């Protein structure tokens, strides 16, 4: 599903040049659950953004579903992204002006799904993350755990092949965090590929493989993380 070859990302400001990713080669197969770990600033999020087609690498190749996408335009990436990738963020990133239902509905709108289909699919996914009783509420009226469940619902609603999670439990207490991780695990069980960036070893436990980054380079790739 995902294959990168010597992926490099360099950020330039006026004077400073920072290499966030340095020749990262990585493969994630369909159906895998991979955790990416590493200290702050090691390039985890940069990698996730590139994998999620939110950003282009400076050098190297990136094959997503057999497409070489490293020099796709924003429009091309958006097209590929909206059909195939769901995102879950540490800080939930829900739109405050939209209700729970409307937030979850958003990806379907941009996919051009008609409103009756949208309604049933949103209902279905809200049911799945057990938040349908709150569908008319606005994000700020929900607890953190509930917000993240909405975010997961939004990531799922378009039935993507890949879910990218950026520290999904970072802003949650442990019981809510566990709830979310269980949800992701369940999802992976039904065949969805998951790539998750995390600081937490406990969360990484849920993954089948851990990729460790340090200073923009892959240092180890374990099948299962040591406890």
């Amino acid at each position, binding site marked *: 599903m995902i294959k990168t070859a010597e992926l490099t990302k360099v950020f330039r400001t006026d004077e400073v040049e920072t290499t966030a990713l340095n020749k990262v080669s990585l493969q994630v197969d369909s159906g895998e659950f991979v955790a990416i770990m590493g200290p702050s600033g090691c390039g985890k999020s940069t990698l996730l953004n590139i994998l999620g087609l*939110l950003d282009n690498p400076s050098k190297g190749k990136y094959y997503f579903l057999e497409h070489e996408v490293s020099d796709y335009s*924003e*429009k091309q990436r*958006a097209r590929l*992204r909206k059909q195939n990738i769901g995102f879950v963020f540490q800080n939930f990133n829900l*739109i405050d*002006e939209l209700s729970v239902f409307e937030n979850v509905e*958003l990806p379907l709108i*941009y996919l051009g799904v008609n409103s009756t289909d949208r309604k049933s699919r949103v209902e279905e996914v809200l049911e799945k993350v057990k938040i349908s009783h709150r569908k008319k509420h606005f994000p700020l009226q929900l607890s953190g755990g509930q917000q993240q469940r909405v975010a997961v619902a*939004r990531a799922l609603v378009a039935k993507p092949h890949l879910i990218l999670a950026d520290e999904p439990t970072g802003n949650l207490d442990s019981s809510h965090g566990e709830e979310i991780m269980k949800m992701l695990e369940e999802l992976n069980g039904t065949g969805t590929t998951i790539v998750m960036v995390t600081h937490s070893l406990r969360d990484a436990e849920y993954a089948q493989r851990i990729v460790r980054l340090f200073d923009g380079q892959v240092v180890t790739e374990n099948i299962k993380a040591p406890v």
Partner: protein
Amino acid sequence: MIGNYFKTALRNILKHKSYSLINIIGLSIGIACFVLIGLYIADEMSYDRYHEKSDRIYRVVNVYDFDGVGENSASAPFPVAFTLKNEYPGLIKNVVRIFDFQVSRSLVEYKDKSFNEKNLFFADSTFFDIFDYKFVKGDPETALQEANSVVITETAARKYFGDEEPMGKVLRYDDRVNLKVTGLIRDVPLQSHFQFSLVASMSTVRQITRGQLPRTWVWNPCWTYVLLKEGVVPEEIEKDLPNYVNKFFYDAEKENISLYLQPLEDIHLKSKLDYEIEPNNDIGNLYILAVIAFFLLVIAAINFMNLATATSTGRSKEIGIKKVVGAYRKQIIRQFLGESILMSFFAMIVALFLIELALPAFNDFTGKEISLSLLVHPVYMGALLLITLLTGFLSGVYPAFYLSSFKPVQVLKGKVSKGAKSGKSRKVLVVMQFAISIALIISTFIAYDQISYIRNADLGFKNDDIIIVPINRTNIAEGFKEFKNELQNNPDIYSVTAMDDILGKAHNTHEFRPEGYPEDKWNFYPALVVHYDFLKTFDIKVIAGRDYSELHKTDPMKGLLINEAMVRHLGWECPEKALGKKLITIRGDERVIGVTENFNVTSLHQPAGPFALNMKEEDWSIHWFTNFMVVRHIPGKEKEVLAYLEKKWKEREGERPFEYSFLEDELSQLYEGEEKLGSLSLIFAVLIIFIASLGLFGLASFMAEQRTKEIGIRKVLGAQTLSIIKLMSFDFMKLVLIATLISWPLSYIFMDNWLENFAYRTQINLPAFVLAALIALTIAMSITSVKAYFASQTDPVDILKYE
């Protein structure tokens, strides 16, 4: 998708209530003014177009040029109309003459009612063939065929006959002839270059002038219109007009005369001839208004742009998320454009209320009858929708492109610099707003300066304490000498005289052959026919020779007064040398008995030119030329003198209504156009400043919000309120100063150009510029410092706790 846009837009508008309010108020004022000005301009442009054949109707203009002196006359001699038709039968379909005996009022009576009718004209029977007026009763083809017939408007019919049937009723004109009503028409549309209440048949004039119409080619009192055949262009006739002039006009003058055809549709906005039926507007005024309207809208749109981009940080997360879940950039652009257009539609609805509120005052002020129901008309409705859409688009396009350019990666990381990117363009926009505002204030100041300059300008004659009474064809005119002597017994009256036109406002030209000119060289010079004491009444100084005097019995027939400019024009070296020179008229020789200082016989748009004052003695000329009595009273005795005049009038004229005016008012009418434009631009300048201030208020609030943390830290470090106010308002002051620097040269160039319209113009001076800048600075300063003050009053602990 649209539903989603709409929802988000609405919730955003509600979420940022104060910014939305600023936007909607600004936009609605902008749209309301734009629509009002647009309706005004549309109304002005529609003049005379209600005539079905308006594009084929032309007025014959006579240009008389005698070495730079003469006239551009809107009217022509009696024989011109029908000789033209005979000469060019293949080109001209029809002609009509309109005539008013060159008097501003005529006495019209019905039974015991009598009126000084201002809007009575005589016209050929072809009048209704060329012009279209709506007949309620009567037949347009025959209504003006018979002598003693008159067609009357509905309002005039009510005035004379009340609820009685007007058809067949007989009016008495000038106590000389009867006029039978043969047609009733709807009132003349306001969008006409001349208004009339009554139009009588030209054959009636024939009766008055003893059987035949004047056949002279010199006297040119008829406004003459030609209707061209379809497909004929005026040039086809104009190219042959020199031949026509050569064939018909007198040898002595034909070299100095030329004719041309002026399109009917151009008269109201582009014609500034001598002897216009009514004063016209100037298309330049419309351009100025159009520019102001455009600026108003632009400034309101800038508010929107500034506030939208400034507050964009609040929206950046939404944009980022939408992009992450699959929105294309163009979808985001569409969403934001949709929002600004929605906002603009709200503003349009508010604007409609504002227009409805403002219309009565606006109509009152402009003398128009514009109504909001006009907007139901598909063209206007379309234009309104288009303007709303365009305003929305204009305001939204920059924010939309700016906001949609956010990179989701950065936004979601919270990396979007807080509106910093758009900061520069926002500054440019604020500078633009203030530059326009300041320039408009300066221009308004200078326009007012010029208007007051004109009002107080030395015209070369006295214009206050002078009452004008129209007396043409009254008993008073016929026995003017005795009446004048009677009035002069009143100690409140300083002096009394009479003239044929109002000095400073209008005058005729008279035919002279100056001494030394060839036998066949007759020239036309601007002149007034006056009575004794003219110079005394108007305080016009004699610089050589003497005034008319009753002691010199030959003065009226043989004596002439000229001004200094005339001396120079005729090349007579100095005033003293002009004395005794001959000016030959067709009725005998006249000699210069006195030379006066120059005085302004027309508006100050033109310089004071050569001028002559003439007196007449024969009964017929007293009858023709004693049109206005001039009474100069002792200062402060105005009321007493008016009461006295009315009493004396009643003794002589019975029930004929007594009318009067003050010379000052008559003269200020010459600048009515400029004064109206001045007041309008003052109002709009205030509104523009208001809208710009609203925007600045929004921006300042936003900046204050943005810098709360900085303010908190500064306060912790010991900053005083004053230094915080300074810190925060300084940025804005800089912008206003830059705006000032831009606006100064622009408004200077513009107003210098505008003042070129006047022969007598005020100096453009510094105070207007400084004052305008100070106004803008003060407004900006107070807004920003108030905002800064409140920002600095919050407890730093509260501010810093947020982080």
